[in-house]
């Protein structure tokens, strides 16, 4: 017991001394500081950013510049604006926030409602929003005397658009359910503009009316039948270009990933209401409507459907015309118009929810966005996670393999040595990256495959080093005496040989991480990275395959991060080598 304790004491002192020496070395200190910074970025990634690097696209305009950069160089820019604060009508206080004008026969109330299905929720609100209750219920009791129309106008609080340039895009989302509208067809108008609803006209963008500056998004009839969902104005019936991925209960809206989009690419979509196969031009396998579960009981028929409607940029970029008088006060107005048709007997109701409006800015976050509007800072911190994880694990696998092969070849010798070393020679002759590329295509582009491949193809040099060290160790007197004392091979290897090669193991561990990180980056850059994870190489791949490579904020941060982390590991490894294997110190 006493002996063991003192041994441990001795080891602790040794480690402490080594650490002190490392810290005294300027380059090693630099490396350690950088590694600590990136390590904590990786560990605390989910706390540092509210977004998800894969799922959250279209957070801002494509290739938005970093906010601080725009401020620093005083580049005219705009930021995201969400004019409606309680879009999801979560609490009863949502109603007083709106200025409501309505015909005497129309009434509106807030109702508590938990009938949203999970699917509709994620589709409309995006993955980060939580499911909440509440919506507006509009009842039509009849039509005013001598009038053929009954109107309800919801005017949001005016908001100040304070940026010197117009937003380059805006999006309006609206969720509605219509009951019994055959006798009173309803139309929905959405306005964004500087005027009140009385002065709004039906002018469309093309007219470019400077005085009115109101854009009427749509005056489509509200229908009870199912309709196509429009996302950002792109009809999803052409699944060739875009596809919806349904992943873990969240929706990813993106182009099919990877460069090798070819005849065999077979995408599976686990989407409950949009199922597309990129190979086949078939109709969606299920309808684009979702049952309203909760209120089904008191509805008259079972055919009622909940509909999602996106008013995207249906016209080519109306945003700049709508917001031409910037900065200024603007208002969002939703107007519902019922039309009298025949002898109305009552019972028409419309449920409204998710009155969501977003104006897209061109400056965003601390590192801007990429071509898909995804946050680059988010990609950087989650990329740190993946790059470090793959680098460390692959280095570990290769060092363990190299150590095993080297020990066996060196200590056992004879035929074992010959076979193992010739095997090493063969692996050294095979071309590294091309082989990994081939195997990645064969095995499938996943993170674990990559780690295994990098580990299995990176141990040869280290095995040779260990073997040569063991060869000289084997002849030393202390091994001889251990043998003479009757120690077995396993005992000698674990108690006498391994402790003597451990210093080299630590150094190799540190210096082979960069190789793994760089290989991972190269593979991801070529489009063979794991599609489920973001890494620095993949950020650069996205940049290279789109217009992103012309923007410094897309290219510099991930590239510099790869370089800094690799360099830090190398510097740390070299310093460790100097301290643990002090061969060179004698010479001046």
């Amino acid at each position, binding site marked *: 017991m006493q002996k063991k304790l003192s041994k441990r004491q001795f080891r602790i002192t040794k480690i402490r001394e080594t650490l002190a020496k490392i810290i005294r070395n300027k380059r090693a200190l630099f490396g350690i500081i950088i590694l600590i910074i990136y390590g904590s970025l990786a560990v605390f990634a989910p706390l540092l950013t509210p977004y998800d690097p894969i799922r959250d696209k279209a957070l801002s305009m494509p290739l938005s510049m970093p906010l601080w950069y725009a401020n620093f160089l005083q580049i005219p820019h705009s930021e995201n604006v969400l004019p409606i604060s309680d879009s999801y009508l979560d609490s009863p206080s949502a109603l007083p926030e709106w200025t409501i004008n309505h015909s005497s026969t129309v009434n509106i109330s807030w109702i508590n409602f938990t009938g949203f299905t999970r699917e509709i929720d994620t589709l409309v609100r995006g993955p980060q929003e939580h499911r909440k209750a509440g919506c507006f219920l509009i009842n039509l009791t009849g039509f005013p005397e001598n009038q053929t129309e009954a109107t309800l106008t919801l005017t949001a609080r005016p908001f100040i658009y304070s940026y010197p340039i117009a937003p380059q895009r805006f999006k309006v989302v609206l969720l509605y359910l219509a009951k019994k509208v055959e006798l009173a067809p309803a139309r929905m108008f959405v306005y964004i503009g500087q005027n009140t609803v009385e002065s709004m006209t039906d002018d469309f963008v093309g007219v470019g009316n400077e005085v009115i500056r109101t854009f009427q998004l749509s005056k489509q009839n509200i229908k009870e039948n199912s309709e196509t969902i429009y996302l950002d104005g792109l009809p999803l019936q052409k699944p060739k270009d875009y596809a919806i991925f349904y992943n873990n209960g969240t929706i990813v809206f993106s182009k099919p990933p990877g460069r090798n989009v070819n*005849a065999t690419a077979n995408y599976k979509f686990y989407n409950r209401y949009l199922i597309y196969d990129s190979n086949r031009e078939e109709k969606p396998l299920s309808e684009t409507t979702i049952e309203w579960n909760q209120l089904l009981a008191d509805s008259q028929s079972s055919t009622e459907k909940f509909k999602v409607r996106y008013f995207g940029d249906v016209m080519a970029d109306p945003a700049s015309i709508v917001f031409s008088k910037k900065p200024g006060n603007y208002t969002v107005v939703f107007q519902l118009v019922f039309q009298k048709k025949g002898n109305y007997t009552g019972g028409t109701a419309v449920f409204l929810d998710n009155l969501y409006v977003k104006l897209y800015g061109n400056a965003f976050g601390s590192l801007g966005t990429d071509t898909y509007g995804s946050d680059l800072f988010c990609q950087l911190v989650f990329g740190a996670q993946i790059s470090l994880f793959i680098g460390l694990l692959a280095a570990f696998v290769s060092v363990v393999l190299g150590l095993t092969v080297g020990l066996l070849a060196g200590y056992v010798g004879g035929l074992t040595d010959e076979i193992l070393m010739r095997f090493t020679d063969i692996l050294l002759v095979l*071309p590294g990256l091309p082989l990994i590329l081939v195997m990645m*295509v064969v095995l499938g582009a996943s993170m674990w495959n990559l780690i295994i491949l990098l580990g299995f193809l990176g141990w040869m040099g280290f095995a040779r080093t260990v073997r040569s060290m063991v060869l000289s160790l084997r002849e030393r007197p202390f091994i001889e005496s251990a043998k003479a004392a009757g120690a077995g091979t396993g005992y000698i290897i674990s108690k006498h040989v391994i402790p003597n090669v451990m210093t080299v193991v630590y150094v190799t561990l540190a210096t082979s991480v960069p190789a793994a990180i760089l290989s991972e*980056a190269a593979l991801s850059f*070529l489009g063979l990275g794991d599609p489920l994870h973001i890494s620095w*190489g993949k950020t650069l791949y996205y940049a*290279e395959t789109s217009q992103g490579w012309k923007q410094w904020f897309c290219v510099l941060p991930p590239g510099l991060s*790869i370089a800094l982390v690799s360099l830090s590991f190398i510097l740390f490894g070299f310093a460790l080598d100097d301290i643990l294997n002090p061969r060179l110190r004698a010479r001046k």
Partner: protein
Amino acid sequence: MGLREYIVKRIIYTVILLFIVITLNFIIFMLMPGDPMAMFAQPGKIRDEAQRQAVMERFGLNDPMYIRYGKYVLNMLTFNFGISYMNQVPVSEEIGDRMIYTFILVGISTVLSIIIGIILGVLSAYKRGGKLDTVNVVSALTFYSLPSFWIGMIFLLVFSVHLHWFPISGFQTVGLNAVWPQDWAVILGDRLWHMVLPVATLTLFMYGGYLLLTRAVMLETLTDDYVLTARAKGLKERTVLFKHALKNASLPLITNVALSFAFVMTGAIITEQVFSWRGMGQWLFKSILFYDYPVLQAIFYLLALVVLAANFLSDILYGFIDPRVKYG
């Protein structure tokens, strides 16, 4: 053991290795999932079984495995690589064309990086711990840590997009109005102009390794007695460094250059991809995505051949450079 016996032994060993590598190439591509037929033929093109059989026959996919292996080994040894699935052109034809481009690109950058690496490495070792040494070592390590494709991207961003000094991609100007051989100067200039950025990228990617190795070896050599003797004789410092010390320090360098041929393809794939340079690397990458086995087998085989030949030559060269080396 004399030189001749040593060479014979090395040749036998190299041939055995070559055979193993050839066999491995066969096995790897046989194990690959997916029918190459499906890849090579557009869906709907092959209508009936007879047509399918005809195509299988053409690519020799009907034979039993051992006959295919025998044919394959023979084909490899006679440099008859078959027909590419992708564009149905004999592989050997396209290889020649592609190889020239890669050879020029990789050759120039390798030579440049060796020269730069050795000169800077020697100077670094000479002034060990000095300012130049620190700058050299740190920059070499930095360039070693930078992903090569990223260096390429930055070059493109700075010199092509912002400064417009060099073209963005390709190996010649599209629609260049010049005829070979009358306008040779124009064509040559155009090609060189297109080569600057890829060559610079590859050179920066490679020189660091040579620099660090030269420096390490020279540090060992400079403390040897004969260097002291040379200095004592009053020889110029340059002569001492580059003639006396470097010559003896060059042995590990030669091994390293020989081994680095295996890694050249790594740099080539990425650089050619970034600069759309139509060489072997780009071709290899395309072939991987298209499961074009004949092309892949050919490239892997040629690469192994080059690496083995380089290793073999470097072993033999040892003796000519350093008479102290005993073969055995």
